[in-house]
């Protein structure tokens, strides 16, 4: 292990991890990282690296900056960012400021791969947590089947009312155990399940997954998105959204438009929904 103050570099066989001090200011981190890499530029000829940012809250452009510093000053390729799981805890709704586990907007899709190679030495295997192994196996199984190309992350639980002005983007499923009020925004790469009244704006399958669904105990939201499709509730003369039924509802994409039907279980076949196309 090599220590350089705020940035720690941990080598594990063919793997390298950069651990960044949670409390150091961003500019200091960026500076140290640059110094370190340019000093040891010969050392890192090629390879993949993981960056562990801990509890730190980084904006997307800051992540992109770190990525570019590393990639320009060395031959390394940043393939993965690691965040402390508790930094995505539901109690804290400042999640909007935190990026999730991808490496900034500029990153090509192929780099979303979880990189913890099988050929890595024992130390690496030992440090692999159970969750990581499960994610990995899911990942490889998915890729084999060529099934839903989703970046698997743990589902995020929100346990308090999601209020106006609060926004969230999560790289997985989102479960809200309360209402989503008007003016709130949730974008999830997976499904969105609301155990309450969904009145805000939500986007399921935000990375382009048209198979994602939105399920809510009540679905008075006049507008929501699944994948690349936009659902607009049909309106009556009184400008009141006409709902297909009361009770739990599911929104899904069929024949290139969003339909809403009473929810009858995850594996029921939904055919007769109300089209939500305005």
């Amino acid at each position: 292990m090599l220590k350089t103050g705020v940035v720690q570099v941990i080598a594990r066989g063919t793997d390298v991890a950069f651990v960044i001090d949670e409390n150091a200011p961003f500019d200091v981190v960026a500076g140290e990282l640059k110094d370190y890499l340019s000093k040891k530029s010969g050392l890192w000829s090629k390879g993949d690296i993981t960056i562990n940012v801990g509890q730190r809250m980084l904006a997307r452009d800051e992540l992109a900056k770190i990525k570019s510093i590393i990639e320009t000053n060395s031959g390394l390729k940043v393939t993965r960012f690691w965040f402390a799981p508790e930094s995505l805890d539901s109690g804290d709704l400042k999640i909007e400021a935190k990026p999730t586990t991808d490496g900034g907007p500029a990153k090509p899709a192929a780099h979303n791969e979880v990189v913890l190679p099988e050929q890595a030495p024992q130390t690496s295997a030992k440090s692999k947590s159970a969750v990581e192994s499960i994610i990995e196996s899911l990942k490889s199984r998915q890729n084999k089947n060529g099934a839903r190309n989703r970046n698997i992350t743990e589902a995020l639980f929100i346990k308090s009312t999601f209020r106006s002005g609060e926004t969230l983007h999560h790289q997985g499923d989102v479960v809200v155990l309360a209402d989503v009020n008007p003016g709130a925004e949730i974008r999830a790469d997976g499904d969105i399940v609301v155990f309450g009244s969904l009145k805000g704006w939500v986007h399921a399958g935000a990375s382009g997954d048209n198979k994602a669904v939105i399920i809510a105990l009540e679905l008075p939201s006049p507008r929501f998105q699944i994948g690349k499709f936009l659902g607009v509730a049909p309106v009556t003369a009184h400008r009141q959204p006409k709902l297909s039924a009361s009770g739990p509802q599911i929104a899904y994409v069929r024949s290139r438009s969003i339909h809403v039907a009473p929810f009858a279980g995850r594996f029921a076949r939904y055919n007769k929904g109300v089209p939500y196309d305005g």
Partner: protein
Amino acid sequence: MTGRTIVITSGKGGVGKTTATANIGTGLAMRGHRVVVVDTDIGLRNLDVIMGLENRIVYDLVNVIEGTCKLSQAMIGDKHDYELYLIPAAQTRDKNSITPEQLREMCAELEKEFDYVLIDCPAGIEQGFKNATAAAQEAIIVTTPEVSAIRDADRIIGLLESSGLHRPKLIINRIDPEMVRRGDMMDQKDVESLLAIEVIGLVPADEQTIVAANRGIPVVHNTKSPAGGAFLRIASRVDGEDIPLMDLEPKNGLFSRFKGMVGMNGRAYSHA
């Protein structure tokens, strides 16, 4: 003695924050507490007018914070025989003249001497809101039964919770019982289900509130008026007394109630 610092806020302007501050402050003082109300709406001060104290202002909040005067010099005693004091806002300055830390420090000083420190928060969610909420341990949110005010209240609750002010209480102001009965106005249940926080008071629309504000005598002095009674009950609830919320009755009696019974009331609003 350590008092409680409570911020009264709303997000939307004109829903009755200042009126609520003056009345709850007066109500608590009428119950025998030592109360100080702080106007943090720097540049747009109003609390002094509603309390009828605008002629007595010498020093203001910014003077205290900048050290131009002592804290006690800026406190204006109420006209009535209560232990009620006002710290007015500066009119010629802006919200950036003070910082959240400075206000918190001042309120900590006041808490040593008073049972209640009530902070009248400015509208909006900018610097003034941040100043006012930083100093408080509790929050009361004022809203009216209108979608716009409720949307703003929802946003405010979210902001308060993210800054650590949990479990704010709600006052629904300016309820028109007749409109509620007709189904043209949201009732307590509608608002409560949308905002999902505890309601601490329902204040009916009452022209006495406006008359009292114009005279500079908060309506709570007139305990027989509907709004005055409501504010006194809110003050009691803030004080920890367990008084159930009253159903607000329309003024005009039998016929309208009969109409309500036979179902001639529909709903003309949408929550979404």
